[in-house]
């Protein structure tokens, strides 16, 4: 059982480049989330999804886009990368909204230079 798989683990982007962070879960969870964590900070919610075809903005959505075409996949797209997007990105999933025992991916460390 793989849980939540995030790729890549590390990435360096130049300012203005674009990329997609991949997230896949094999637990048939309905809820999926993207968080970013800056040094010395807690997690901030970027986008979330309560099921296939449904996405919504979190606390810090600017500069990002998501899609949820299947239950398993929840990719995060960065368009026109900026230094302010340098962070560690975590994808997480849960069966229901009340299931706070999120399963987190191992994270993607992104640096924009």
């Amino acid at each position, binding site marked *: 059982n793989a849980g939540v798989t995030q790729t890549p683990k590390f990435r360096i982007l130049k300012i203005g480049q674009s990329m997609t962070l991949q997230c896949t879960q094999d637990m048939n969870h309905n*809820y999926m989330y993207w968080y970013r964590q800056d040094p*010395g*900070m*807690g*997690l*901030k*919610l970027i986008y*979330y999804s*309560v099921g296939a075809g449904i996405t*919504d903005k*979190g*606390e810090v959505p600017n500069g990002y886009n998501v899609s949820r075409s299947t239950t398993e996949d929840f990719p995060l797209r960065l368009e026109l990368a900026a230094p302010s997007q340098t962070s560690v990105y*975590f994808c*997480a999933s849960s069966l*229901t*909204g*009340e299931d*706070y*025992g*999120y399963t*987190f*991916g*191992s*994270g993607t460390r992104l640096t924009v230079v």
Partner: protein
Amino acid sequence: EDKVVQSPLSLVVHEGDTVTLNCSYEVTNFRSLLWYKQEKKAPTFLFMLTSSGIEKKSGRLSSILDKKELSSILNITATQTGDSAIYLCAIDGGGSNYKLTFGKGTLLTVNP
């Protein structure tokens, strides 16, 4: 806007010490308070506290919710080096989508 403040931001103790981590919050409609432990990578869930479950315990870790004071504490007794981690507090402030607001975390270092 929901808000979570944790203190202290960092703490260094020796093995065997007891520590208390604090979390205070401001929310529109409180539903749950969560504690997570983050070691090198992703957070792992520790406790959920609600109006109907204000005290939780697991081994050397315990947590209490004080709804009157809008706060929670996380206690760790007989600390071990393996307890070294960032401890995150989060709030579900109500709403239909169960979104969490996290505090900045407390970095706990347990020295041998």
